[in-house]
């Protein structure tokens, strides 16, 4: 953010809420308070309509079709790619590969780039606060290649311990893969510093942006990352579609991930030639409708302004941390300073198991997530096996945070009585 701060328009949350049909739902007779946004976000009418319109007016298979519907579908599909590319400031649309979700994007890089570049004795560096999807592909690859998997540790303050990174990331490091924002602690990680260090030793830098691209301005060129992964369903878009961004030359040199359909230029009974980027990585009929709807999600977010989205969540997070810390028996994990974190707050209660708390809050219409949040090693490092998590997005309000806080104390009261 720069000096023109006061020129930036912010949005009216009530207007935003009116765009989300699901917010009219009653849960156990109560208004829905949806605080499970780190798992998946809700969808505005604009995105739902994009899907409906596609299927009602344009649906056809893309590429190579000579008929009007196919041409229109192809144009819409490729326009969506351009929109997503613009959203993260990708230098060219071909660097945006559609996948199913963040997990597939990560697996793709592990199975192609890393499969070819990581050898015995090399190491792969991740952090102690990764989602399983950014741990297990690397564990498996490391075992297969007899490479080492190294973790950048996280302190009890919820921050990465950066002091040792020049020892952890060394001349045998081939790839550094780190989450931009932790889905458990909310921590915003210093990925720029990691990227600089990775490049210093000639390693590539992958950023798991599943929890950042939806919430803050992200510029892949400014960050200079080599790969970036995220999911549409966590940013107002549909389920079933995600993105892998990669630098052009890297992607261009990589082997394909899957074979068939659009990724092929030419086939004989003996052999095949690959198509150009981005198609080389898109085997078979793509998820056309959901790509187009993802373009609509990006339009919606651009219209709000990502600076504003981020500011809104920062405000909510600061307010929530303040209100929640007044609750007896509640322990919040992750950074205390709200400016160091995104809108994700994980917590434990002295005397209520997260599961019981989740059931109690659900009775009040409040949706939070409980469990290990697909980050078992991290959650266990806090000596618990499960935590409760509230996570915010553009349609959440301070009033809803008040309801959460009241709900926690009511539920605590129920079990204490």
């Amino acid at each position, binding site marked *: 953010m720069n000096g023109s701060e006061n020129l930036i328009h912010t949005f009216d949350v009530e207007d935003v809420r009116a765009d989300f049909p699901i917010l009219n739902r009653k849960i156990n*007779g109560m208004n829905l308070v949806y605080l499970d946004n780190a798992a998946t976000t809700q969808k505005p009418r604009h995105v739902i309509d994009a899907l409906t319109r596609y299927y009602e007016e344009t649906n056809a298979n893309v590429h190579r079709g000579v008929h009007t519907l196919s041409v229109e579908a192809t144009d819409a599909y490729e326009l969506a790619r351009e929109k997503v590319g613009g959203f993260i400031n990708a230098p060219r649309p071909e660097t945006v590969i559609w996948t199913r979700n963040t997990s597939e994007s990560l697996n793709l890089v592990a199975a192609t780039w890393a499969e070819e570049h990581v050898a015995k004795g090399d190491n792969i560096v991740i952090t102690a606060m990764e989602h399983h999807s950014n741990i297990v592909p690397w564990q498996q690859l490391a075992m297969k290649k007899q490479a080492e998997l190294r973790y950048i540790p996280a302190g009890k303050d919820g921050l990465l311990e950066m002091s040792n990174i020049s020892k952890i990331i060394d001349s045998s490091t081939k790839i550094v893969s780190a989450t931009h924002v932790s889905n458990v602690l909310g921590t915003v990680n210093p990925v720029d510093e990691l990227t600089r260090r990775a490049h210093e030793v000639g390693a590539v830098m992958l950023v798991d942006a599943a929890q950042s691209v939806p919430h803050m301005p992200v510029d892949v060129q400014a960050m200079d990352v080599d790969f970036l992964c995220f999911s549409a369903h966590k940013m107002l878009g549909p389920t079933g579609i995600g993105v892998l961004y990669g630098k052009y030359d890297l992607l261009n040199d990589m082997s394909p991930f899957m074979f068939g359909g659009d990724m092929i230029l030419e086939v004989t009974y003996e052999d095949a030639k690959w198509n150009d980027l981005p198609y080389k990585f898109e085997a078979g009929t793509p998820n056309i409708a959901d790509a187009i709807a993802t373009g609509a999600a990006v339009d919606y977010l651009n219209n709000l302004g990502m600076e504003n989205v981020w500011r809104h969540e920062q405000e909510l997070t600061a307010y929530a941390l303040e209100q929640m810390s007044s609750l007896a028996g509640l322990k919040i994990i992750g950074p205390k300073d709200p400016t160091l974190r995104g809108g994700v707050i994980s917590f434990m209660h002295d005397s209520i*198991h*997260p*599961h*019981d708390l989740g*059931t109690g809050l659900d009775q009040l219409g409040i949706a939070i997530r409980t*469990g290990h949040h697909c980050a078992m090693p991290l959650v266990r490092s806090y000596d618990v*096996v499960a935590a409760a998590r509230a996570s915010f997005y553009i349609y959440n309000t301070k009033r809803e945070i008040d309801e959460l806080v009241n709900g926690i104390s009511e539920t605590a*009261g129920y*079990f204490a009585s």
Partner: protein
Amino acid sequence: MMGGTSGLGDLDELYEAIILDHYRSPRNSAPVDDPDVDLEVNNPFCGDEFHIQLKVSDGSVSQVGINGRGCAISQASASLLAELVEGKSYAEVKAAVDSVRRLLKGEEVTEEEQDLLGDIEALGGVRKFPVRIKCALLSWVGLDDALTDHLKK
């Protein structure tokens, strides 16, 4: 205030008084010396973990020890289990596990079985909270597997 005001009222169906009592004061939680059956059961998704120990002799369970951590439902269920199986024959334990499974799935349970289950019937409230059924079943399924294994030896 036991679910007095507001939307928490329905919680009473899940957390019956008996359940909360077993949750707060688990029965037979002391470890068993030199157990014949000794197993860990867990549900990594919710983080429930229990340690089940049995001493068995002459075809029946002579001593039980269960402890661990988990939500109110899984803890109460484990405690109810510990209370029930002590002194029961293998056949009776197997029958009880079967009855509990059917109870939780909302299938029919005979009057005879109800008598056998006693307080355990309180677990039936979980039927209205389908995600919690796994919590209630955890220790029963573990016990079943452990006994089956033990009998094979």
